[in-house]
Structure formats: C-alpha cells, structure tokens
C-alpha cells in the first residue's frame, strides 16, 4: 500500500479513552520490534516523542469523540490517513463514557468538578464512525492483541482482517467450556456478544459482560427473556446492556426497552 521505496507509515491516535487499546501494541512484547521493523512508526505519542507530520498509510484510532476540538481533530486525522482503523469499544461505540448520552452532562460535571463551568465537553460521547468514514472497526474493551496484529498485517497486505463476527458462545464451544448459564444459572451475555476475547469470563466461572459489543444480528430479545427467567429485574436488564458498548445499536435498543 505504500510506495515501494519506503516502509508504510503507521500512526496511533488517542481520543477519550483509558489508553489500554494502544497499550495493547506495546503489550506485544514478542512482536513489537518486528512490527517496528516492518512499518515506520510515524506518530505514536505513548511510545515516542519523534513525530512525523504529513500523511499516514495506516492510522489506528483509540477513544471516542467527547469535545468540539476532538470532533475537528478526527476530520484532520481522516484527511491525512489512507486507511483508518478504530481500535476498541470507545472508538467503535463511544465507550463507558457514553453513559452520559442518557444523562445531563452538566449535572455530571457538577458531581465531579468544583467548577463545572470550566468544563468544555459535548453532551454525548460518540463513535469515530459517527464523524468520519472508517475502513475497519476492531472490537473489544480492551482489544485483543492477537487480533490487533492480524489487523495490522491484513491492512498492510491489502486484505480483509479475519475477525469472526459470531458470538462468544462459539468460542466457549471451541474451548470446551461448560455453559455457565445452562449449568450454573449465571447470567451471561455470551449469546449476543461479538467473539474475539476467547471467552475469558466463562473460562473463569463468570458470565460474559459484553465488553466486545454486539455480534452480527444478535437476538437480544430472546436473551433478555432468559435473563429475566434467571431472576434479573428490569433495572438489571437495562444496565446489563448499558456498559462499555452502551451506545452500540443492538445493545442501546435493548437497554432502552427496559428503561423507565
């Protein structure tokens, strides 16, 4: 994708987030130096003060848009990026900070800050794709570093990344996990949650809490019936979908169905 005489330029951008998804790149302890050999890390402030201005072949974008200046900045990032990939739940769905979308952000500011009038923030936390065209979205809170390496490799090779959109249930079956919902009666979002983590929570005897967001065409209605039968009340049903991917379409719609 880059001109033949130079390595492709990689940039990593941060919006409202915890830094965890970009840290996933530094957590590739065995692969980091190989990645650095294959690409020119042109802009990655968490890792280096050397910054190359100009255009980038691949931009990885972490975080959601919560301020007017960030809404302008993402336009600039898009204009200077040949390929733009969002990494993580904040960038793909607004993150946990999107809970403000159901609240009064001025009231939120008054709870946290002594001088809320100094706070400049938007009323909403929104996904990057709400602002600019996105070439690929990598799910997860946090993303899986294995999937991150797959996305970088695929994008540099000009092919589609392999990140199956099926549910966490399939990952449990592949691991041979006993179903925590059927066997233990533990509420689990696995049936409606996008795969990618490797079914970590059920492997540790707890229910999935949906940090990878909705799978392709999830049947949330049916799952909510099942959760209700396990004793989850209306508030529980509303909140169980309203966490790290609260503003992702199917989770938002299902949580709203149990609101009020």
């Amino acid at each position, binding site marked *: 994708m880059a001109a033949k005489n130079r390595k492709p330029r990689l940039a990593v951008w941060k919006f409202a987030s*915890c830094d*965890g*998804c970009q840290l*996933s790149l530094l957590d590739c302890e065995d692969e980091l130096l190989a990645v650095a050999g294959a690409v020119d890390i042109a802009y990655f402030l968490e890792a*280096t003060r050397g910054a190359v201005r100009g255009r980038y072949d691949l931009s990885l974008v972490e975080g959601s848009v919560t301020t007017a200046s960030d809404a302008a900045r993402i336009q600039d990032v898009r204009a200077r990026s040949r390929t733009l990939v969002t990494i993580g739940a904040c960038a793909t769905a607004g993150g946990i900070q999107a809970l*403000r979308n159901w609240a009064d952000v001025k009231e939120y500011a008054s709870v946290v800050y*002594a001088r809320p009038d100094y706070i400049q923030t938007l009323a909403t936390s929104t996904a990057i794709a709400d602002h600019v065209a996105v070439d690929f979205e990598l799910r997860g809170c946090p993303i899986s570093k294995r999937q991150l390496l797959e996305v970088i490799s695929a994008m540099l090779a000009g092919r589609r990344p392999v990140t199956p959109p099926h549910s966490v249930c399939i990952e449990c079956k592949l691991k041979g996990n006993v179903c925590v919902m059927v066997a233990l009666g533990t509420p689990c979002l696995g049936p409606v949650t996008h795969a990618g983590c490797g079914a970590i929570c059920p492997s540790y005897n707890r229910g999935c809490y949906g940090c990878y967001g909705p799978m392709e065409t999830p049947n949330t209605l049916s799952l909510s019936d099942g959760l209700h039968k396990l004793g989850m009340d209306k508030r529980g049903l509303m909140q169980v979908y309203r966490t790290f991917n609260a503003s992702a379409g199917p989770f938002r719609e299902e949580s709203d169905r149990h609101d009020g």
Partner: protein
Amino acid sequence: MTVKTIKVDYLARVEGEGAIKVVVRDGEVESAEFRIFEPPRFFEALLRGRAFTEAPDITARICGICPIAYQMSTVHAMENALGLAMTGPLRDLRRLLYCGEWIESHALHIYMLHAPDFLGYDGAIDMARDHGDAVRRGLALKKVGNEILSLLGGREIHPINVRIGGFYRTPRRRELEPLAERLKWAREAALETVHWVAAFDFPEVERDYEFVALRHTDEYPFNEGRIVSSRGLNITAGEYEDHFEETHVERSTALHSHLRERGAYLVGPLARYSLNFDHLSRLAQEVARDVGLGPKCSNPYRSIVVRAVEVLYACDEALRIIDGYVEPDLPAVAAEPCAGTGYAATEAPRGLLYHRYRLDADGTIVEARIVPPTSQNQASIEEDLVSFIGGSLDLPEDALRHRCEQTVRNYDPCISCSTHFLQLEIDRG
C-alpha cells in the same frame, strides 16, 4: 525585560495527553504549568445508580495501564463498607496480582518511557537500535508481569477475575508453578535492571518533599496500611478527606490535591520507598545499597532506580507468595449488600489511589469519590519544574524542552487516570 516561554504542546511517552508551559522572566523561572487536556469522562458521576458488584469492572476502565490499582482500591473500599476483610490465600492472591501490575507498569516506564530520556533517544524503538539487549530484557520483564495478570486476572488489560469478596476463580497450585520459574528469571533481569539504570547520569538535585504513602506493620504496602507522611501524618483511609483537599489554583488549569495543613506533597515510588525501606526484601535492600541509593531518596530523576528496586521486590514477593500458596476452599467470601460508606487507599504503581463509595441498602452506589496519584502529584510536578529548570536555561531550546519533559516523566504521569483534571485556557493579556 526578556520573556521566554517554553512550550511542549503534546507531551510524549506518558499515558494520556498533557502539555507543559514554563514562563521565564529576566532569567528566572516565573511559573510552570503541567497542563492536562485529557477530556473528562465523569466516572464518579456515571457510577451512581450502578450495583456495587459492577464497580471493579467499571473503574478498571479509568486506566488501561493500572487497572488492577483501580480494581483493588474499589474492592477494598466496598469491603470496608460491608465490614469484610480479606485473609489467607485470597489476601495473598491480591498481593500477587498487584505484583504483576507493578512489574508490568514499572518495566513499561523504565524501559519504554523513561530510559530513552537518559540515553538520548526519542523512544525505546529507536533506542533498540543501539541497546537491543536492554530493550529486549525490558520487554521480557514486562511480559512476566503481564503473565501474572493473565493467569490471575484472565487478561493483561482490564482483568475480569476480581470481585468484591475475592475472585471468580482461584488458581490451582500447579498453574502457579510455571509462573515461579518465569519469576526466577525475572528477578535476575530486575537485578540487572537496577544496575543498568543506576549507571545513568543524574542531575544532582533534591527537594524537601513531604512523602505520603501507605505503611503496614510488617510488609511493603500494596493494599493495606495507614496513610503516613514524612512529616508525621498517620491516618486511616477513612480520615483522608479530613487532611487532603482538592482545590483549583487560578494560574493553573487543573485541580491540585493538597495537604490542608501544609500544601504540596509527593506520592509514588520515591515516597513509598523512603517511608518503607525497612520492609523491602533483603535482596532489594542489598542491591539498593550496592547502587548507592540509601534508605531515602529525594532526587526525582533517580525515581527510575527506585522503580527498578520495586520491580525486584515485586518479583521476590511474588515468588514468596507462590511458594506459600494454599488453594482456598472457595474463590470468594459472600458479600451481602448493606447501607454504608467505605474507604480505601492502595498503592498504584504511580502512588496512593484513594476511593470512597456510599451505598444504599441494596448495594446501589449513591456517591463515589476517586483521587488518582497523578492528581495528587500535580503540585509537586510544577514545583519541580520551577526548582530544576532554572539551572538549565542556557541549554539550547530543544535540549531545554527535553529537560522539562524528562522532569515531568520522572512521575510516570498517568493522565488518563486524571478524572479530576480540568481543561481551561485563561488569557489575561
């Protein structure tokens, strides 16, 4: 009058986004600002109305670099509200988990973020061209920390296995054995790290900080202890807000945390080490003495050496815990909700992390208060800039800017944690 303004618009190699502004008038540093423009995410507001059981998963998301610190302060504050105290293997496993985070976070800072300042590189990837063996050792050391987090927590970032009352699943002894082998290697690598960083060139400066850290009766602090200071403070976490307050300083753009009686103070490795040297393992004490550190350290540039000693201690302590581990009968004790308020402070890699929660009878969170270490160190960071930059004003512009950055990076500032920082521009021209 000559006026010179040094600006670093995007501070690199810190977690989150911040900037520095130093104003020089007639050859003297007049003021220094360490400015945070991380957008607020309002955690304390959005926690209200959630079940107490959800809190450790939510607060982990404040920081991807130190999620265990947030989870630990959260569960201990909740358990304080419910009248629970962890004992035996569950308590030990929480210490082991924290060892993993200290190793991972400190190795990241030492090798990837801070060492390049001392050796003259933009980042660790450039540094690897000339110091490949050191960078590979740092990455391997960081990986061992992450292996503890993966095994005990389920994954490195935002672990899923921590709950109020204990864990969802506790490890079998045989699962910990391979980890012990890795930790023996890591302990050697940590020893090499201490010697490696101790040989760097350090500006010979000191400041008379008031150190604040936890102190436990017989162990180096992670999750428990009284909050003590080098000037005689000695309180429980429940008394924290009687002694510390956050105020807005007009010239600055952020909330600063102060001791009500005395002003700026310091949390983090220097404070922890200087207040708890006697509780380090024998090996950690010996190597600290070998490299000339002494039982107290007031030079913030040497914080990289103290972090290396703490990595060594964390390896030692992790090995001790694994060696004595007895599998618990149950992964958690029952945590029944009740109305009340709970307080906790634990030692995040960057320093004291205070949480307070008020709960309803059914365990719904009514109020939350979180004070991260970087917010507490903000005043000391700015005072360091004012104190230390004056002697460097003759340096070329780029070198001077670099020295300012290095002075801030001494603190390993974790700006994403800074739920309390404000963004504000005041132009009084």
